[in-house]
């Protein structure tokens, strides 16, 4: 860490980790309600717990992106942040807004579109927070060095803000509602978020492998080119059955098949860089998360996405547990892991510690990843069975759900493992390692 203002990222990483734990806890709650339906049914209905689970995820990922930007932009732009104070004010506003939303949800104060349940005033507050953030980082980049990484990161972050504006538009016609709801949801996670992810990954590759910036930035352009050339029209795979014309089935099938390509390129990219770089960076855990990120994103977003993206397949699987399986692995691989990777890299630097608790952190990696992987398999099997019974044989929904309870128990178990892994990760990031341990890790020679 070269610039004092990078420290402000710590607020965001801390806030993100708190919400991460909350997200997993509420995931356990709804996982439990699925298998033991009478749990909390009066006090905390499924729909409320579910919106906290998903909203906490989105908010903590965004918070991690903000933190990552505050950490890497000064270093890339080679200048202090435009305003540290603004960044701190922005953090508290965002955290208080998120907390207010969650407390409000518990008292049934919410709106009713999936993932966008925040009351209007919170949505407006998010817009204000986003503008503060964008102003701050844009000013920083403008006064400093401009690199491909800052360039693409900024484009991604501005895109996040612009497409969020569509959350304010809620027409009475459900089809129109859905068409533009996807402009937030899809164009975020399969569009501009990928730009943020790819630029953070590129930054980590430069730092961790020692490969030339030139090489990394070229890869970065290839990856994001593939991502947006396929991802924008890939939105078509959400327009199959919502009242839109039939031609979307062709567009969605063709373009979203290509959405695998950028994720594949990311895998090749990270492994090539590590292989070519040949430098043994002392922060092995950060490298593990970076490599894991590209691999899990490829499987979660790429492979599991392709699994049900072709219109004839989606006709049968749409809205079943297959979607849930894909959602869990894709979010974990692409966005959870990139956040943990940058935190694992940056937090020791900010806290002026040697890379510490690496072993614990890597245990966290393996346990969490195994948990999410097992969960994905359980849900995939559940989805296949559900698709067959409900969509081919025409059995009733509740009847089919009873057949799936074994899978749901397995999912809950996997969720517990995930939770343990998450605790390990958070512990390893927050609690300083023992002095002896630090010494031993630091003493390891670079190979």
């Amino acid at each position: 860490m070269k610039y004092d203002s990078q420290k402000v990222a710590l607020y965001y990483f801390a806030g993100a980790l708190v919400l991460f734990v909350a997200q997993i806890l509420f995931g356990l709650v709804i996982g439990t309600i699925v298998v033991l339906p009478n749990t909390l049914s009066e006090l905390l209905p499924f729909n409320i717990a579910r919106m906290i689970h998903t909203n906490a995820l989105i908010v903590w990922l965004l918070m991690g992106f903000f933190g990552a930007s505050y950490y890497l932009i000064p270093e890339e732009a080679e200048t202090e942040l435009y305003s540290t104070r603004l960044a701190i004010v922005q953090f508290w506003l965002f955290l208080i807004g998120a907390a207010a939303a969650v407390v409000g949800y518990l008292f049934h104060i919410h709106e009713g579109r999936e993932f966008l349940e925040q009351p209007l005033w919170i949505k407006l507050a998010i817009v204000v927070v986003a503008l503060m953030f964008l102003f701050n980082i844009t000013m920083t980049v403008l006064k400093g060095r401009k690199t491909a990484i800052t360039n693409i990161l900024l484009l991604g972050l501005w895109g996040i803000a612009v497409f969020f504006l569509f959350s304010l538009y809620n027409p009475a016609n459900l089809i129109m509602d859905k068409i533009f709801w996807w402009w937030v949801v899809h164009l975020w996670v399969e569009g501009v978020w990928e730009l943020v992810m790819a630029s953070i990954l590129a930054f980590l590759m430069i730092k961790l492998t020692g490969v030339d910036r030139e090489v990394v930035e070229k890869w970065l352009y290839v990856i994001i080119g593939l991502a947006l050339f396929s991802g924008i029209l890939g939105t078509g795979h959400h327009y199959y059955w919502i009242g839109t014309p039939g031609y979307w089935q062709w567009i969605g099938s063709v373009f979203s098949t290509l959405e695998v390509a950028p994720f594949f390129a990311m895998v090749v990219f990270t492994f090539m860089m590590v292989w070519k770089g040949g430098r043994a960076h002392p922060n092995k855990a950060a490298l593990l998360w970076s490599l894991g990120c590209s691999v899990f994103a490829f499987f979660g977003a790429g492979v599991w996405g392709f699994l049900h993206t072709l219109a004839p397949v989606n006709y049968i699987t749409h809205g079943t547990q297959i979607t849930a399986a894909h959602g869990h692995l894709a979010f974990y691989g692409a966005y959870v892991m990139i956040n943990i990777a940058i935190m694992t890299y940056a937090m020791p630097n900010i806290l002026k510690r040697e890379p510490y608790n690496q072993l614990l952190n890597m245990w966290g990696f393996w346990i969490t990843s195994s948990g999410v992987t097992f969960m994905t398999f359980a849900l995939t099997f559940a989805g296949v069975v559900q698709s067959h019974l409900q969509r081919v044989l025409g059995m009733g929904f509740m009847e089919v759900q009873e057949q799936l309870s074994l899978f749901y128990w397995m999912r809950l178990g996997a969720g517990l493992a995930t939770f343990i892994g998450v605790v390990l990760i958070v512990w390893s990031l927050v609690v300083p390692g023992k002095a002896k341990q630090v010494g031993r890790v630091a003493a390891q020679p670079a190979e």
Partner: protein
Amino acid sequence: MSEILTKAAARNIFYGGTAFFFIVFVGLVAHSVSTVNDMEKSNPVTPSVAAGKLVWEKHACIDCHTIMGEGAYFAPELGNVWVRYNGREDAAAARDGLKNWIKSQPSGVEGRRQMPHFEISEQELDDLVDFFKWTSEVNTQNWPPKVSG
């Protein structure tokens, strides 16, 4: 020097290509929106349908149910619930059936998923049913494959 030029050009091609795909996307969405507007002529969003959608949102129904396959997968699909209740043949019975079902929740049956009790007025219930009826008449390219949803 030329190195920098190549990368600057790469950036411009990325922007240009992205703009191209986005324009094509916007054009197609604009066309789709016009077909939705055409459809509204035969299946208009009446004030009660619009009010019903607000009831649907007020109680965050989508965080358990799905509608046209989108939602939380915890409770049945409601995009075609009107058809499932045989509303096309006997509208009055379907309306009563749906309203009574909602009013009778939670069932309290042990081991069965519970739908919470919502404070919904008679008027709101009618609006909600109108909303379901409207949704069931949307051309969803024959989705879902079975009436079970």
